[in-house]
């Protein structure tokens, strides 16, 4: 028993004592709970205690004067029922909008370090809007039996990322799971993920957010919610509404179980995190937490006290302020140490490099801290390297040789080339090479480029080849929302109504073409969940508000489009079987470059703008040390073309393993040898993948 953990004071019936100044938020201590909170401007602070889900507090305990050191308030309150109480803080201080002080002692504020948040316990359950305390901090039992689990440690080069939305992944009836739309439902689908072969799942935001933020009704009266969740309420708390056990405040256990089960199956977990702004909006937005605790510390403000809006969402977090920087660092360390998370994708990450006035910094302290942090040293850090303020840093994101980026150029160039645009063959060669033109391998390493052709933001892969135009009418903005530069092509028929069989055939071929290139390119491939079985959003390229069949994966498509699923599965296993595709080959066959570009004739690339034919050869070794050559032939032209494959060493021949021109037979049961005396004819809009074979 420590001698400094006994009560020294009383407030009413509550036994209290000065708390732990170096802690953050609420922690259990023997016999009580420690509450610590920082504010640079608050003159006083009160702890407000509620019984679970009660509208009125049962106690308000002021922090005594001597329970404060510097700007930190800390108090231990004894004999609390940790499973019953919900707590918040009230802060009193100046109100001077121009100076950034907006203290309001009537507001009950969420603890920014809350590990569990209640108030939105069950997804979509309409809250009591009269309740003055909407988002409630709770105390978390941090213990969990990990049974030896840690974040996974295999090389980032091996990653094959699968981007998914927790709710949308299993919410539809067709998912067949018991706990639909939840972390527990995702656990039930792990055998599927393992069978597919991916080894990392990237979840759209799972930090607590409010699905009712900005909620509307569509023309038919159906609710439009904040479905994606890019608007954080609490950074340390998992979204309760994604937990089947959220109504019992067990979301932390449920999520930890998901992580443990994923790891058992060799699958990493990457979180999409939103540190660029919060759900508090601008001067018209609600007081949730930061605004009432320390507005001018946490937000970037104009000289007259308004909120800069580099996020496009009303406010901008002041990421490079030392207090905020530590907050973010502590948060990420918490997720790695406590939840065993393997990495993060940072939404609108360019904001993380802006200074207190919004100007981009050459050496942003936050990004540097994250790059060199010891707890995060095995974590993959992925930047969405742009923001809504016009800062576009793809290729130039401050990286310290550590950060990867969502490579938007890869997406754009691959889309343009595949649909047959002129002048894109050379660009695509760069993209397949890991975009060496923008990611210098010497500085950036082998994993800087996260390659993708689709992500949650935009068309699904099926829709990319099914719609020329976005169809976002259901979003309620007269189809004015969502991007217009989709580089999509409907293959000659808009949508699916009365779809001719030949168009459907072509779409499937285009999808396979995209998958073949994505999964043979250098860099880290990312697949959007459902693309592997032709999931459609019916032409909606911005379903951020669609909590319904537009967004939910339709697992009936898995049965219908087995050819696509089998193709993705084959390409994933193919990538894993060839270290050279992951830049993991330990050696190169003598005399060959590891990566070379070819045209109709080997070693002769056609630089003319009308060329729509690209051959790429990778040369390396298998895991067993055997010479390994791979030829990727991409014909985006609407006519077939003959190609001469590069000559192999004397004892080797080419064999074709994949040919998307063969419909359901695109994957050869056994590879077919290619006669070196003849050209190989690549069909119109088709991709071939060939491998080397030792002659007997």
């Amino acid at each position, binding site marked *: 028993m420590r001698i400094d953990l006994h009560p020294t004071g009383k407030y009413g019936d509550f036994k209290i004592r000065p708390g732990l100044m170096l802690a953050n938020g609420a922690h259990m201590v023997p016999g009580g709970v420690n509450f610590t909170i920082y504010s640079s401007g608050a003159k006083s602070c009160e702890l407000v205690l509620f019984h679970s889900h009660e509208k009125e507090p049962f106690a308000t305990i002021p922090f005594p004067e001597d329970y404060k050191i510097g700007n930190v308030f800390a108090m231990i309150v004894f004999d609390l*029922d*940790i*499973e*019953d109480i919900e707590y918040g803080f009230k802060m009193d201080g100046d109100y001077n909008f121009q100076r950034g002080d907006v203290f309001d002692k009537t507001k009950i504020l969420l603890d920014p370090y809350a590990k569990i948040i209640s108030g939105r316990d069950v997804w979509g359950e309409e809250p009591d809007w009269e309740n003055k305390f909407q988002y409630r901090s709770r105390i978390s*039992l941090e*213990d969990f*039996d990990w049974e030896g689990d840690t974040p996974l440690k295999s090389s980032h080069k091996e990653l094959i990322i699968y981007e998914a939305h927790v709710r949308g992944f299993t919410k539809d009836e067709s998912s067949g799971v*018991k*706990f639909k739309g*939840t972390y*527990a439902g995702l*656990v039930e689908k792990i055998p599927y993920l393992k069978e597919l072969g991916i080894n990392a799942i990237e979840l759209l935001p799972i930090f607590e957010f409010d699905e009712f933020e900005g909620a509307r009704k569509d023309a038919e009266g159906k609710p439009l919610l904040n479905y994606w969740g890019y608007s954080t309420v609490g950074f340390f708390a998992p979204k309760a509404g994604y*937990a*089947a*056990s959220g109504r*019992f*405040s*067990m979301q932390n*256990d*449920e999520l*930890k*179980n998901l992580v*443990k*089960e994923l790891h058992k199956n060799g699958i990493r977990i990457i979180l999409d995190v939103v540190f660029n702004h919060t759900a508090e909006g601008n001067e018209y937005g609600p007081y949730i937490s930061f605004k009432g605790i320390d507005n001018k510390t946490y937000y970037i403000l104009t000289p007259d006290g308004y909120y800069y809006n580099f996020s496009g969402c009303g406010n901008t977090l002041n990421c490079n302020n030392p207090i905020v920087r530590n907050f973010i660092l502590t948060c990420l360390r918490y997720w790695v140490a406590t939840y065993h998370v393997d990495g993060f994708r940072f939404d609108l990450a360019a904001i993380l490099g802006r200074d207190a006035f919004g100007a981009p910094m050459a050496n942003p302290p936050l990004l540097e801290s994250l790059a060199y942090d010891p707890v995060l040293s095995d974590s993959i850090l992925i930047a969405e390297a742009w923001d809504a303020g016009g800062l576009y840093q793809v290729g130039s994101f401050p990286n310290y040789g550590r950060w990867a980026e969502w490579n938007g150029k890869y997406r754009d160039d691959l889309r343009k080339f595949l649909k047959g645009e002129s002048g894109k063959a050379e660009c695509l060669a760069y993209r397949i090479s890991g975009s060496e033109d923008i990611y210098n391998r010497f500085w950036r390493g082998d994993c800087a480029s996260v390659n993708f052709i689709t992500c949650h933001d935009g068309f699904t892969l099926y829709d990319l080849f099914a719609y020329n135009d976005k169809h976002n009418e259901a979003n309620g903005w007269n189809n004015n929302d969502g991007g217009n530069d989709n580089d999509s092509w409907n293959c000659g028929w808009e949508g699916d109504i009365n779809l001719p069989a030949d168009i459907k055939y072509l779409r499937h071929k285009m999808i396979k073409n995209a998958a073949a290139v994505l999964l043979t390119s250098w860099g880290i491939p990312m697949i959007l969940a459902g693309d592997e079985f032709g999931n459609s959003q019916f032409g909606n390229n911005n379903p951020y508000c669609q909590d319904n069949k537009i967004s939910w994966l339709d697992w009936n498509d898995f049965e219908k489009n087995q050819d696509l699923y089998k193709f993705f599965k084959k390409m994933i296993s193919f990538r894993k079987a060839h270290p050279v595709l992951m830049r993991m080959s330990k050696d190169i066959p003598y005399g060959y470059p590891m990566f070379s570009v070819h045209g109709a004739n080997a070693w002769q690339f056609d630089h003319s703008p009308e060329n729509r034919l690209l051959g790429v050869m990778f040369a390396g070794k298998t895991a067993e040390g055997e010479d390994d050559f791979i030829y990727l032939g991409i014909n985006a032209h609407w006519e077939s073309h003959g190609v001469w494959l590069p000559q192999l060493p004397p004892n080797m021949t080419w064999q074709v393993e994949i040919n998307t021109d063969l419909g359901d037979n695109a994957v050869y049961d056994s590879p077919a040898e290619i006669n070196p005396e003849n050209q190989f004819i690549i069909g119109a809009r088709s991709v071939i993948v060939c491998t080397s074979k030792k002659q007997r």
Partner: protein
Amino acid sequence: MKVTVERDDTIKILAFEGQLDVASSDFAREETLKLLDDKPTIISMAKCTYVSSSGLRALLMIAKAAKPKGVKVIYAETIPEVMDVLQMTGFIKFLTCAKTIEEAEKELAGK
């Protein structure tokens, strides 16, 4: 929360009655561990109406404490609401469960 001994011969059958929450989980755990000896034990959960986070940990700690003693503990007759919580949180993987006392007895007999 009540912990009662329902049977004590070749096997022991205990019964939990009430809510297993922060107020009762320490008591339930300590009381159960006191009652555990070297006999295989079935804990009837038929009248356990709620299990909180602390309760989950109590169930786990009982199972973990019995293991090194070589005592097999089976939770039986768990009501569907509580069984759902065990499944959602993954705690079910740490526990041996049976639908009925008879099933639990068969399991203990190795049938």
